[in-house]
């Protein structure tokens, strides 16, 4: 153990090293890239041995691309419509069940139309798990990177409806470049496949409606909307 107090002195030398390193780091950055490399990056660098304070909210840590917070819906800028088909998968995988979707039904045929009529996310309940974005088969819902969401109200402000949820796909492309690139790469092949599938489906559907016009409200709409009692 040695002399009493040597342990403490050894510890204090560590504190002193931190103190000195902090100034050395500052000097290094002064000389080289003052103002070029902001503090947040230094704080995140494993090479930095000084103590760095990121002065939030003046400075912010850069967010990684995968960062996720409350989701948003993607609007297809080509068609101007929602990418969402109201398939309901996101509502099913959502662990706290905070996604609410009203499917559109064609007023004439009473068949479901692949577009949501209403779409709500209760952001007070959303746990930011990212499942909706992960399991959506149409890349129609993505996780946002905004995190300063505090507000005064609970209902108007926090229960996001379709309008407030929808963001153009250019926004998605800007915040998720890798994901967007993957989407674009898949798109050609996907679209090709989809078109073929749709053609086949249209043919089949046409044949079916011609053959059996008596049962128009087949599987998809069998649930007689069990909404809460009005």
């Amino acid at each position, binding site marked *: 153990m040695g002399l009493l107090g040597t342990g403490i002195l050894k510890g204090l030398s560590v504190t002193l090293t931190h103190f000195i390193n902090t100034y050395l780091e500052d000097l290094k950055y002064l000389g080289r890239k003052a103002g070029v490399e902001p503090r947040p990056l230094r704080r*995140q660098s*494993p090479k930095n041995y000084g103590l760095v304070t990121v002065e939030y909210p003046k400075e912010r840590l850069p967010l990684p691309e995968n960062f996720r917070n409350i989701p948003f819906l993607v609007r297809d800028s080509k068609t101007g419509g929602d990418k969402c088909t109201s398939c309901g998968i996101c*509502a099913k995988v959502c662990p706290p069940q905070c996604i609410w*979707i009203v499917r559109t039904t064609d007023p004439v045929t009473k068949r479901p139309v692949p577009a949501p009529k209403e779409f709500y996310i209760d952001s007070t309940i959303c746990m930011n798990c990212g499942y909706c974005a992960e399991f959506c088969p149409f890349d129609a819902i993505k996780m946002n990177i905004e995190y300063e969401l505090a507000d005064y109200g609970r209902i108007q402000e926090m229960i996001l409806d379709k309008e407030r949820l929808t963001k153009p796909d250019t926004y998605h492309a800007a915040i998720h470049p890798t994901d967007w690139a993957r989407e674009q790469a898949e798109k050609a092949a996907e679209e090709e496949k989809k078109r073929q599938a749709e053609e086949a489906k249209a043919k089949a559907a046409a044949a079916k409606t011609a053959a059996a016009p008596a049962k128009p409200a087949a599987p998809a709409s069998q649930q007689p909307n069990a909404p*809460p009692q009005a």
Partner: protein
Amino acid sequence: MSETTPAPATATPAKPAPKAAPAARHAEKKPAVTLATMTPEMNAVQQHFGEVLIQPAPFEGFLVTDPAKVRDVALFLRDQLHFEMLSNQTAVDYPAENVIEVVYHVSHISGGRPLCFKTRVPRDESVAVPSVTPVYPGAEFQEREIYDMYGVRFSEHPDLRRILMWEGFNGWPLRKDWKEAYYEGDTKPFDSRWPGGHHKLAEERVPWADNVNYPPGFDPNAYVSNPDGNLYESMLTGTNGHELSAPEIDIGADTVVGVEPGLKTDQIIVNMGPQHPSTHGVLRMVVRIDGETITDLKLVLGYLHRNHEKIGERNTWLHNIPYTDRLDYICGMANEMGYVIAVERMMGIQPTERAEYLRVIMAELTRIQSHFWAIGFVLNDLGAFYTPALYFITERDLIIDLFEAVTGSRMMCNYMRFGGVARDFTPEQLARARELVFERIPRAIDELERLLSDNEIIKARTIGVGYMSAERSIAYSLTGPCLRAAGVPYDIRRADPYSIYDRFDFDIPVLYGGDVYDRYRIRVLEMRQSLRILEQALNQIDQTPAGDIQAGKKAYNHRVPAGQTYARVETPKGELGFYLVSDGGQNPWRYHVRSSSFINLNSMREMTIGQKVADAVVILGSLDIVLGEVDR
């Protein structure tokens, strides 16, 4: 049942194919039951106790047909078959058969799969089960929890009170017919969300509203001191059933521990917490003190209770993964790993190689950052405010920056999936992980040791404080670093290996002091072993194909075959187990979390008696609990 509130008059009206009621659901699946195969241990028990008493149980373990014999069986298992530790104890409700099954898992300290045995009591609370606390003192909190959640009484339990719910709570919340506040349906997903999901606030849409209901004769307005009064009184008079509470103590007597004879002193009761910075969350320690010396201690839990297990039984299998992050929120991915391994075991699937490596990398990084955090905060508890803690948080931040980059969230990672993980590391992220593991963290640990290990003040404050012997630690089901600091090299990664830990070359460090100082040092040693695992994993991961992170097709609607399993992993806090029962449906029938933080607290009382008040804080810190996991 009298304790359940009446069924909502407005619940979903007649529907063509209503979701079967839980009881019906279970009854329907009944024929598929397979009986457990007899193991040598079970044969030994059977020979000793006779066939009538012991039967193979459905799926796993054996059934003790006469509940009155449970303690004898436990004693036999401990003394003759050397199952020294009670790993897990819980209950399952089967309303269709009108029974509640109490389930025990016992383990050898030397390793191996745990042995499971069960007993069944009627749901009407007419039969009490003999408490196994005389055999396994670690059952104390677990039996209280079973009593609290299921209403199963345990005879001769030292202190059978509610533990997570308060005294004014009516009903047994984990029974299948209990409906919680804002109850919407037995299982998710709820039909109201799609395709006609007009949003409605919870308080407007459900008939259950706040669902408050008091036990008969309970007047909430009169509730001021009564139940707490009992608690205080039992502590003052030493009538709370513990042998260790030195029953000869009475108030003002001169036989009190640590007091000079002849000096008449009063003992007083002091509440520490629930809102107290030293309790690492909302934990209340009620201590009886004599001057500065603690003569008795009781923990009051449940301030963070949200009935994680009930939520888990409403959820689908997939929904539960992000919820496990919220158990011990410091080590989210370690919890996820335990849960996905349990479900994978039931589904009979294997994750891909690369996913296994990624899981191990994440789990070990989690261990390192959790230990940094634990050590930093023990120092805080000792009075070294924030300087050391912040040095370690700097390192921890580098690790969770990596978590954030890979998974999208710093703590609520939601990274593991059944059969794989959610995302692969990019090459840059792997490079960053290597930089941390090979360069940064080893230096940080060296520095940590230089800063603390020889510090005379720390040694004076921690050596010999909060001592617990190896035997008592095992008896109390203490697991994790605290057990290993008491001289028991018990680590699930070696004792009951899971994932690919059998591939790596690493040691289970063990120290023999059993005090706060060794609990600190063991964490340092474990971080170094974690680094060893990480070095190997990061070197080997390149042999696996990038992007191959999910076995089979990614699905969201898993059906888990009927059955049950107890899977456990070594988290930074100790043994985390998941006891799952499936009836073959989309939702777990039973979802039980064997939480190490919760069970480790069992031993807190014995560790603190005779210590100073200021040391109680340090002892609690050295146990490294997280209230999210304690209260669930």
